[in-house]
């Protein structure tokens, strides 16, 4: 009996203390709160709202046509802000609160700066592949001069390797129906722009300084920040869109293809071009000049997807009608190139003869200096003061100076990206230190080795004027090759 009771007691005590202990434990230990399981980059440690050198990131709106970002890859390193603010002069150069747009010129420098590959161009590879597979569509592709000296890098070639002809071969193998050269339409641009410049110099002095308009990043920047200079912009479309408009009119007519069945694709070193092709103004008779833009990087992906190796692919020539190019068109890809090409032809227009040798290798406008100044003496016109500027932060400083003191230049070339198109936001990423110089060198090498160095010497250009456009700045040329601009100032200010 006693034994029994004590055992029962014992069990009771054990059970009771067990329950109590469990209860206390369960009540007392609340365990860990949820969250805080991840990591955060080092600059955000500590009392993190102190300012640090590199932090944050740029804003990219959902409907940005040029670039997009995969949040999962972003490491908040702040490199994109660095590029956007200090190289391109966009971030931080507009007041807060926002008006009605997230400022972005689409230059894509952030895609180059982003170390983790979070920011990329908005890809159109699938669209283009679908167009190629669609038999009812005639898919035309054009390649920009700067892509010819960079695409090789994506296939392991030396920086600065010239792969223009291989690229043509690869594109034909990929199934494009016609491959044209944007250098051709660069020549066309020069014909128009040089004429326009000469016209402005002599007859429309209020539109001087003449500002180039072939770089869509710069154009949008001008529309955002310097709308008062918009009437100084050359009304010429960019070579890409001149080509597009010509394909859907002249070429379509010649080939007997309905323009609506043509898909215009371009291979560009540039993400801003993706924005440009969507512009309202860039359509003629309800036909969009251009349909899709692929960056150099996207083209590499597309070719690899198709199993085409640029190293082994057979070289090929551009298709005719819109395929011939001159050295002048080729140097469009480098900073100073447009100026040099324009001066060559302006000289011809003014004097009727080709420029002398020093204007064919015009060193003052070449190189990576932020703002390059030069003057060209053209007989009959006089001395033209020229400035060449690349990198929009440089442009900002230059233009602020102009706003204050007026312009001592009659012609200013602007390129959004440092180094010009060869440093574009759609170009292959590279850690080679002087990659831009190497690409530039390759471009000038191509120019030097060209038989024809001036746009007006291009026989296909001559024949297109004869057959279609008449003469530069003709009514037809105005319709197809010139455009207007949109004041975007009040979207930011």
């Amino acid at each position: 009996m006693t034994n029994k009771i004590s055992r029962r007691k014992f069990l009771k005590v054990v059970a009771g203390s067990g329950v109590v202990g469990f209860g206390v434990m369960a009540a007392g230990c609340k365990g860990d709160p949820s969250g805080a399981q991840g990591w955060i980059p080092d600059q955000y440690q500590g009392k993190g709202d102190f300012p640090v050198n590199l932090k944050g990131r740029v804003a990219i709106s959902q409907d940005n046509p040029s670039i997009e970002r995969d949040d999962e890859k972003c490491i908040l390193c702040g490199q994109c802000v660095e590029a956007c603010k200090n190289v391109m002069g966009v971030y931080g150069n507009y007041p807060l609160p926002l008006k009605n747009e997230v400022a972005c010129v689409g230059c894509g420098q952030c895609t180059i700066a982003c170390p983790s590959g979070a920011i990329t161009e908005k890809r159109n590879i699938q669209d283009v592949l679908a167009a190629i597979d669609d038999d009812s569509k005639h898919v035309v592709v054009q390649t920009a001069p700067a892509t010819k000296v960079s695409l090789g890098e994506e296939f392991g070639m030396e920086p600065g390797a010239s792969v223009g002809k291989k690229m043509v071969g690869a594109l034909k193998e990929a199934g494009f129906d016609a491959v044209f050269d944007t250098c051709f339409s660069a020549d066309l641009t020069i014909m128009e722009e040089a004429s326009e410049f000469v016209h402005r110099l002599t007859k429309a002095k209020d539109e001087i300084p003449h500002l180039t308009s072939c770089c869509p990043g710069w154009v949008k920047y001008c529309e955002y920040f310097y709308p008062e200079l918009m009437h100084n912009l050359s009304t010429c479309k960019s070579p890409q869109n001149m080509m597009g408009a010509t394909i859907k009119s002249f070429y379509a007519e010649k080939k007997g293809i309905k323009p609506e069945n043509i898909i215009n694709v371009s291979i560009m070193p540039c993400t801003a071009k993706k924005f440009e092709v969507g512009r309202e103004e860039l359509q003629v008779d309800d036909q969009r000049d251009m349909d899709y833009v692929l960056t150099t990087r996207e083209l590499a992906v597309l070719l690899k997807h198709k199993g085409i190796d640029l190293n082994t692919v057979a070289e090929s020539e551009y298709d005719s009608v819109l395929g011939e190019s001159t050295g002048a068109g080729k140097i469009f890809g480098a900073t100073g190139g447009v100026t040099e090409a324009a001066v060559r032809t302006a000289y011809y227009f003014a004097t009727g003869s080709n420029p002398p040798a020093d204007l064919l290798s015009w060193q003052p406008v070449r190189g990576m200096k932020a703002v390059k100044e030069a003057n060209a003496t053209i007989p009959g016109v006089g001395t033209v003061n020229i400035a060449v500027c690349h990198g929009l932060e440089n442009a900002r400083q230059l233009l602020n100076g102009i706003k204050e003191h007026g312009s001592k230049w009659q012609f200013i070339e602007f390129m959004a990206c440092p180094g010009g198109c060869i440093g574009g936001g759609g170009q292959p990423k590279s850690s080679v230190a002087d990659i831009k110089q190497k690409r530039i060198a390759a471009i000038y090498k191509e120019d030097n080795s060209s038989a024809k160095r001036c746009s007006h010497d291009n026989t296909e250009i001559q024949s297109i004027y004869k057959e279609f456009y008449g003469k530069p700045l003709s009514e037809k040329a105005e319709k197809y090759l010139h455009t207007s601009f949109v004041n975007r100032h009040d979207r930011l200010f």
Partner: protein
Amino acid sequence: MKVKVYKCFRILGWDFTITPTRFVLTGLVALMAATVLLRLLTGFQFVTNLTDETPWGMWIAFDVMCGVALAGGGYSTALLVHMFRYKQCEVVARGALLTSLLGYILVMAGLFLDIGQWFNFWRPFVSWGYTSVLFEVFWCISMYTTILSLEFFEIITERVLVKKLHRHILKILPVLVVIGLVFPVLHQSSLGGLFLIMKEKMFPLWWSQFLPIYFLMSSFFVGSAMVCVETTLARTAYGHEIPHEIMLKLTRVGARIMLVYLLMKIYDLFSMDLWGYVFQGTLQSNMYCLEMLFGIIIPICIIISPLRKTRGGLLTYAWLTVLGVIFNRLNCVFTSMYESGSYFPGIGEIIVSAGLVSLGILIYCFLVENFNIIGNARAVQVKIDKDKDIKNLIWALLRTKRH
């Protein structure tokens, strides 16, 4: 009244009747079991349509809110019978007690399924979130279910463990009855109290300072109405007749409370200046009008009109009241809160709810047939046959015999 006799198994002295309806119900229960398994193993994703915007769905609104309200019959009859000495009503007391107990057990089952980390269900016992109304509901419901089980044990022990326990239970029964009347009053009102904190979310027509009182009152009058409905059903099934007078007496008390409820609601409309919402014609206001008209006003009219003297009239009153309260609970959880949410219960939720109700009916039938609940002494007379062993069980299963 003639009662149709169906196949009945007697196993170890217990009667299991099989009818086509029960066959279907058993099927539903089996379906539910499968769904429950799926739910417990995979969480909510495949079984329910719950979303962040409608975190509480059918299981809370119907199984819990309505279940508790409908099970209110137990305490309201107990209150009338044991406290206010409506002695004539004693005949319904046991039935009401049983339905309440079943109701609560099913409510607990529903709740258990509805909680995400069900293995943690015991947490509130040790980690006291005493600032929460739900805390009170949780404790009261658990306590009350325990008390109800003990009370019901009295009936069970009439047949099982008679010698050992019955007299002890009988002894503490009065205490149990008193405690058993405290808890339901507390949690019925607390169920309304749950919504107090949703002031900023509820449609103003439903939110009121008096919500706890509303829920308490409505649980009371729906309790008597439910007893009425349920005895009618039992009458059809078991020929268990309850005099109309008794039913009327029960419901009349309910109807009086209903009238007070209506007056308070109207007072609310004036005091919070809500008349504008009533007739604005939106979904919410229409639902509110429907609820008030069919759930409250028409039943009151029936009770004060001579219609109450007819069986049909009383039954209509009871059904309208029951449906009205169900509607009110659904409105509180859904209509009043999720103006943009489009929640419709998922098939799994419906299966589980239907299965739970079926399970309840099956258990009810079994208990009624085996214990003295609605006045049939039949079951008690059956002696427990100790000699029926496994062999007989198998025998019984193999050879069905008519009862």
